[in-house]
């Protein structure tokens, strides 16, 4: 009897031990979690993982379900959309930020170091978008479903886009493809010129696989790839030492020749809540929606950081009423002269105080407002000084309330490629190739829209380097392009163009040429022994 009891006891214990040990192989039960092995179970998962690669350029992460994509001291601050805007705009004549947050002042005055948190986050986030894309490409490679082939090509486009930013900003980023795994390893560094070749070959190879232009806004299509090719070719001399103006022109031609796009009649539509699907000019943008795609990021950030409680109230100008008027960004005086052309408009006298909105300007791209003074008394002085900018808005073009309106989040998409850029890129290429007449014709397409008639058109005699650079500023200000343009024209650091607080002095000073490329973040140099710091840092 006792013996039986003991035997039973031992059997029971053994059974329990075995089942207990098996318990260690636990699988997550969270309904928001899908195991990597189950990714093929539902076709919608593929759309959702693709959606993530797009979203990684604009949003901070998964919201309350999964938090931010990267560890940073603030989710919204350190998104790609915000950090990219900051490093492309407040380092230039177009913008200066009043905030005292660590790293802002360094960008304002071109005195950044490898520790700058915006540069660090941007570098890490661009790499992360590439890693997400690699994972998706690996998962969909070999799948012959036409829809999946197209998704795969979109992911490759997004990877090329992220690499193009890394190439432009950091020169020599780490290089991984879908052939690399995920875990703990040290990615190799790639040289800028080699990365240029890779981006070009990728874009050419996916060109035929992408959807037709505007097949499903805001997804990347053939025209998105042409625009990206045109843009990297436009800057080829900076990246590789060899200009590729003819190639730039070929791809700008393809966009214009597609016949699928036209300039928006009203320039402002590109920066309004209805700037997406119904805008004939938008080629590629990052979706923002007051209900579905929320965050203090992208255009919401541009609008709110440029609004203040006195001069440009977001409630009045933009229809945003919650958490408004961050009073940070505004333009510097030198850029006002580029945009308004004050000498032509007002003669050689100060702009009169009774025209704070520059109403006399004939160029309809002027969305500026004078603040307390045009001069900014110190590099980090209050946002009440300088020239306020209200180009982006959360209202519709006609001033009505946006669809999916939200008082805190704009539904205005963050533009990456506009049709207008195809004309100005082609004009620059034609100008460099010596075909001045074609350049003037393309520029006048843009000028005619800007002035509403031909009075702003230029002649071949008026066209020069400075005019091209200025015209790009007038057309694309606050669209995160300025630094790239200034670098290409040799004016970002050591050129003749000086703006207030460039280099940390009131009248502006030339800075060292090595600043044309940002430093590799100190975090990365420490974490990856394969990565060498850029020259000069």
């Amino acid at each position, binding site marked *: 009897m006792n013996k039986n009891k*003991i035997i039973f006891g031992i059997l029971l214990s053994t059974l329990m031990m075995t089942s207990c040990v098996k318990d260690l192989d636990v699988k997550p039960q969270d309904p928001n979690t899908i195991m990597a092995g189950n990714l093929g179970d539902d076709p919608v998962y593929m759309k959702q993982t693709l959606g993530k690669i797009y*979203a990684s350029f604009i949003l901070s992460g998964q919201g309350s379900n999964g938090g931010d994509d990267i560890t940073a001291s603030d989710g919204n601050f350190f998104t790609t959309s915000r950090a990219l805007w900051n490093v492309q705009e407040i380092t230039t004549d177009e913008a200066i930020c009043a905030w005292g947050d660590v790293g802002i002042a360094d960008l304002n005055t071109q005195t950044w170091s490898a520790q700058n948190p915006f540069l660090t986050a941007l570098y890490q986030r661009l790499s992360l978008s590439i890693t997400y894309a690699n*994972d998706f490409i690996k998962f969909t490679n070999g799948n012959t479903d036409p829809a999946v082939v197209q998704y795969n090509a979109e992911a490759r486009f997004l990877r090329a886009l992220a690499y193009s930013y890394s190439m432009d900003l950091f020169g020599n980023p780490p290089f991984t493809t879908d052939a690399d795994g995920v875990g703990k390893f040290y990615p190799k560094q790639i040289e800028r010129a080699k990365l240029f070749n890779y981006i070009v070959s990728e874009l050419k190879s996916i060109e035929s696989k992408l959807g037709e232009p505007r097949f499903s806004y805001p997804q990347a299509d053939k025209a998105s790839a042409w625009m990206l090719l045109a843009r990297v070719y436009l800057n080829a001399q900076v990246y590789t030492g060899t200009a590729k103006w003819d190639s730039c022109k070929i791809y700008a031609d393809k966009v214009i020749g597609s016949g699928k796009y036209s300039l928006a009649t009203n320039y402002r539509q590109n920066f309004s809540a209805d700037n997406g699907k119904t805008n004939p000019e938008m080629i590629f943008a990052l979706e923002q929606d007051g209900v579905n795609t929320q965050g203090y990021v992208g255009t919401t950030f541009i609008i709110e950081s440029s609004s203040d409680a006195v001069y440009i109230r977001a409630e009045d100008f933009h229809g945003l009423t919650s958490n408004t008027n961050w009073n940070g960004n505004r333009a510097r005086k030198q850029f006002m002269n580029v945009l308004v052309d004050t000498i032509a408009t007002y003669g050689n006298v100060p702009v009169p105080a009774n025209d704070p909105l520059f109403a006399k300007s004939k160029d309809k791209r002027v969305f500026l407002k004078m603040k307390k003074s045009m001069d900014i008394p110190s590099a980090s002085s209050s946002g009440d000084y300088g020239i306020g900018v209200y180009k982006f808005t959360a209202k519709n073009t006609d001033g009505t309330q946006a669809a999916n309106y939200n008082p805190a989040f704009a539904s205005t998409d963050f533009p990456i490629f506009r049709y207008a850029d195809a004309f100005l890129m082609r004009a620059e290429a034609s100008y460099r190739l010596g075909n001045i007449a074609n350049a003037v014709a393309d520029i006048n397409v843009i000028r005619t829209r800007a002035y509403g008639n031909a009075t702003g058109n230029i002649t071949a005699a008026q066209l020069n380097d400075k005019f091209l650079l200025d015209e790009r500023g007038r057309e694309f200000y606050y669209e995160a392009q300025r630094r790239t343009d200034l670098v290409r024209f040799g004016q970002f650091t050591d050129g003749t163009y000086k703006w207030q607080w460039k280099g940390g002095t009131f009248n502006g000073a030339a800075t060292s040429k090595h600043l044309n490329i940002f430093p590799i973040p100190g975090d990365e140099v420490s974490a990856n022994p394969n990565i060498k710091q850029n020259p000069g840092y």
Partner: protein
Amino acid sequence: MDGNPLSDGYFQWGNYGANLGTPNPVEQLMVADNKSNVKRVIGNIQFNYKIPFIPELRANLNLATDYTESTGHNNRPTTSPSRITSPLWGRLSDYNGKNYNDLLDFYLNYTKGISQIKSRIDATAGYSWQHFKREGDSYTRGIVDAAHPYQKTDSSTFITENYLVSFFGRLNYTFSDRYLLTLTVREDGSSRFAKGNQWGLFPSAAFAWKIKEESFMKNVKAVSDLKLRLGWGVTGQQDIGNDYPAQAKYRSSSPGNYYPIGGVFLPTLRPDAYDPDIKWEETTTQNIGLDFGFMDDRISGSIDVYNRVTDNLLNTVTIPSGSNFSNTLLTNVGSLENKGAEFSLNLIPISQKDMSLNIGFNVTYNVNKITKLLTSDDPDYIGILYGDAFTGQKQVTRVGYPAYSYFLNKQVYDANGSPIEGMYVDLSGKGGTVNGDNADKYIYKNPVADVLLGFSARFAYKNFDLAASTRASIGNYVYNQVAAGASYDQMWANGYWHNQATYLSDTKFVKRQFTSDYFVDNASFFKLDNLSAGYNFDNLFDKMSARISFTVQNVLTITNYKGIDPEVAGGIDNNFYPRPRTFMLGISLSY
């Protein structure tokens, strides 16, 4: 004043300034509607079975469960100025949660004294199984009314669980009542790690020598106790806050974080960073100690010296870009070293029939140092930085320094010794903006005390007793963020005037200067924590006795620190409220 009768005069203290402010206490008291309903079941059943034909052998089975279910809400009306409701007007937040902790524990114990060889054996072998599971959901939205028709909603759910399974054995061997040897070994398995890394083997050995029991000490009357202890052991750590750090998985996004594919807004699916090779963190401790007692234990105490080395430290660190699905990863990286000594002394100067006095004293000394942090050994690695975008990164964990050291700019002072706003020593020598730049910061002090002292005394005379306990902390530094948050440009913001901390008259800063080392103060202190007096009434009526006592807590603090309280967890002082001083009158009756 905003015309709202509920808030007039009270809510001018809005919770602005991001993470800086202390929440408005009136708002929290009057308008927050935060209720939760918690049901909890705790069960424990134990079977103890003596094996009939082996009397020394005993079996023990222990089953326990602890289940908690909670439902609740945390609501704010539309009039609430609280930052937590932003960008909502008002807030309705419902939440549910369930918590399961289950335990099964089985062991066999064998005890036998063998008098022939003056030995005693006490051996145990067994295993335990533990299951921890949490699940819950929350649903938050703004209050929709005519004035605020557009409101954000947010919902989330979670389920997470982990298992711990252990096989363990322990052998106590006592020889001659003087030599004690304890050997243990554990094989612990955690579901948090991937197959192949789930199990960790953790041995330990301890030896004690009761010197007082030796023949040469038996007759030394002055010494009442003397014992030498030696120990060595390895322990494992797997409590890392993440139940699935080794598994490749994708996470869906919550509403408001969608992206359109095929013209339809869909939640996105994100691959989460994971380390398939993550494993147990191991800490090896060596210690030597001496227990002593003199004069019938009227003087007693102990001395301990230890060295603790942690390897395969589980930490979230920056990883090479492009190698995983985030910029940081929870992984085994780094080593940490703790060295210290502890000394305690208990004195009984008076021990008489009617009167007694007990005095206790202890001192501990500990230094910690990070010895490794990265997979690669870069001597220039800045370390893991802590802080936020609004107030800057002010602390760092770096190789060669104590964890959470302050990492700040070196303040420049004028001829009168006042800090010059925004001016710091250019430590990197590179020029440019010094303010806030990590390249120009340096490590200055840390929040952990080098030495802790404790002192307590209890005096009794007949039915009357008096007790006091005091503590001192030496070498703990605090960053005074209350002082750092005060500046002239903060006085008028968001449409009304703000009170500023009085530190502002010392700094006279126009803008806040969060990265200045000016705000780090030596917060060493002496505290009289507790003072109590009591009187016992015996045989009050028939069989009843009573005690009446009077206690004061938080009696006295002596410190040079200028903030409200020198004891600040984590070292960043955001505290506006003094610690309460509590007076308690107690009466207890017993039959």
